[in-house]
């Protein structure tokens, strides 16, 4: 009995240590973002943000580079979300409401395409965009992003569409609604959670994406937020960096993402692991 208590105690301690290890970089980012440069450049690190201020955040927000990057990121991301939801919704309707020839191959293709690495395609996409004159163009990047997120979005929405029984729609039609009316009044509201979850998924992908943006947005003025953040790291290779500001900038980029992520995490991971964890 004693041995068991000791064992549980040790395991709990181990779990807490590991939790701290995983959360530490996030804590360190927020902590440093609140500290003045004097504290960050001293030889002894400051572990708690006592006497900290929001000066770093103020400096970042007034940086014209940040404002331009946030504008570009928002434009690309919102375009991607809108386009991906619209296109994927139609696709999801097709595969969950109809049985048609080529349906299986279509799903198979979607799943395979979803696995294709951007890193194995970006050179060709770069050449394509440059010959279309779409380098450094918000629409150009949004097209590539939409194509990247649509396969998984179709897959994710399909589950939600299939979850709304057709019988509901049919019952409404028996009661005198047209097919379109039945769809808009009955099915569509029931799909709202699915659309929100898929929209957030597309948002996170486009907001965080780095690789394709790096290749396609070559000019300084066309930088998205991740590219702008990377600019700081590049600068740190050659000279002393204002880490307080970098961390404030990272925090600003990360906080909305973390909140959104916590909302949809369960759905995203279950989409990835599929039925493998089904009881």
């Amino acid at each position, binding site marked *: 009995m004693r041995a068991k208590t000791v064992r*549980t105690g040790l*395991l709990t301690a181990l*779990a807490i240590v590991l*939790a701290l290890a*995983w*959360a530490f*970089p*996030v804590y*360190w980012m927020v902590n440093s973002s609140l500290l003045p440069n004097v504290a960050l450049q001293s*030889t002894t690190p400051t572990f708690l943000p006592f006497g900290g201020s929001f000066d770093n955040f103020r400096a970042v927000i007034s940086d014209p580079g940040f404002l331009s990057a946030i504008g570009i990121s928002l434009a690309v991301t919102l375009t991607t979300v809108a386009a991906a939801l619209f296109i*994927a919704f*139609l696709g999801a309707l*097709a595969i969950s*409401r*109809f*049985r*048609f020839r080529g349906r*299986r191959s279509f799903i*198979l293709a979607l*799943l*395979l395409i979803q*696995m294709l*690495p951007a890193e*194995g*395609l970006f*050179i*060709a996409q770069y050449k394509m965009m440059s010959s279309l004159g779409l380098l450094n163009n918000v629409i150009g990047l949004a*097209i*590539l992003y939409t*194509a990247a997120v649509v396969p998984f979005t*179709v897959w994710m929405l399909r*589950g939600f*569409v*299939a979850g709304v*029984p057709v019988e509901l729609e*049919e019952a409404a039609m*028996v009661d005198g609604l047209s097919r379109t009316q039945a769809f808009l009044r009955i099915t569509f509201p029931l799909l709202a959670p699915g659309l929100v979850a898929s929209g957030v998924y597309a948002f996170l992908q486009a907001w965080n994406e*780095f690789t394709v943006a790096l*290749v396609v947005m070559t000019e300084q003025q066309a930088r998205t937020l*991740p590219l702008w953040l990377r600019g*700081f790291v*590049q600068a740190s*290779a050659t000279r002393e960096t204002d*880490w307080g500001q*970098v961390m404030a900038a*990272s925090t600003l980029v*990360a906080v909305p*993402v*973390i909140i959104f*992520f916590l909302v949809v*995490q*369960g*759905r995203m*991971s*279950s*989409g990835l692991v*599929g*039925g493998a*964890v089904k*009881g």
Partner: protein
Amino acid sequence: MSAPQPVIVTDEPATGSGSGGPRAESPAPAALPARAKRRGRRVPLLLIVPTLALLVVALGYPVCWQLATSFKHFGMLQQFGQPPEWVGLDNYKAIVTDPDLWAVVARSIAFCLVSALTTVAIGGGLALLMQAVGRVTRIILQLALLLAWAMPVVASMTVWVWLVDWRRGLLNWLLVRLGVDAEGHNWLAEPLSFFVVAAVIVVWMSVPFVALSIYAGLTQVSTEVLEAAQIDGAGGWQRLRYIIVPLIAPVLSIVLLLQLIWDLRVFTQIKILQDAGGVANETDLLGTFVYRLGTGAGDFGTASAVSVFMLALTVALSWYYVRSIMKEES
């Protein structure tokens, strides 16, 4: 919110659009059955047209261009406008025979294997730990993992670059306290320590997904079976080896596969560590190598061949994954 919700998207095949025939058919049986039937056949095809069009333009065309370009040679002359010449399999031969190219391929595969296996091992360990500890501790651990998982890649990279910074990074400060002579040591300057740093970061980022997925699998293992085994005298290790692992094998193989695919294509982490001071040509993996060859050197032929190799490897690895997902579908 803290615990993963394993079965939300997966729909039971029985509900929804279960039985065979086209669903668009109007329920009014008398009205024009032939037309309705024809429409029923055409509607789903119209619905997938936007998806198909987008994928063909943004992914299909580049794949084909890449495949064609991988058989061409781009050199000095092509930079001045000469059309590239067809060289057959030369670019692919170079991947296998050219020591520099081969080194990149070998490094990528080694990095991928080491990171993926470490991630799954640590993730599995954390999942077991989550089961062994009390509720509160488990939720704390899950929240910490979710926090790390939620971080945008580039934001976490800036933190990591700062943590390992050679001037005032926390890592060197800690090592000096522990009595290691690490004052002013630049971990990114040498390839080996560069890859150790990169692997630590990649594992840190990937473990949450693996740990939470395996934990979700573990919660499905019935306690009765485990108790029965215990009564029959099976020790902890035996229960793990002969009962738990076989029962959660599907989850384990899927997360390992996904991890292999994702770690093969690792780009952002390597690129940003290179930006922060790594020596590019000694630390290139497939992604950064293609990037440098293509956008930097303009050698689209070799870049395309390496990309095609990467795509082929990914598709081969994905095949099993996609098939196992498709089984759920039908």
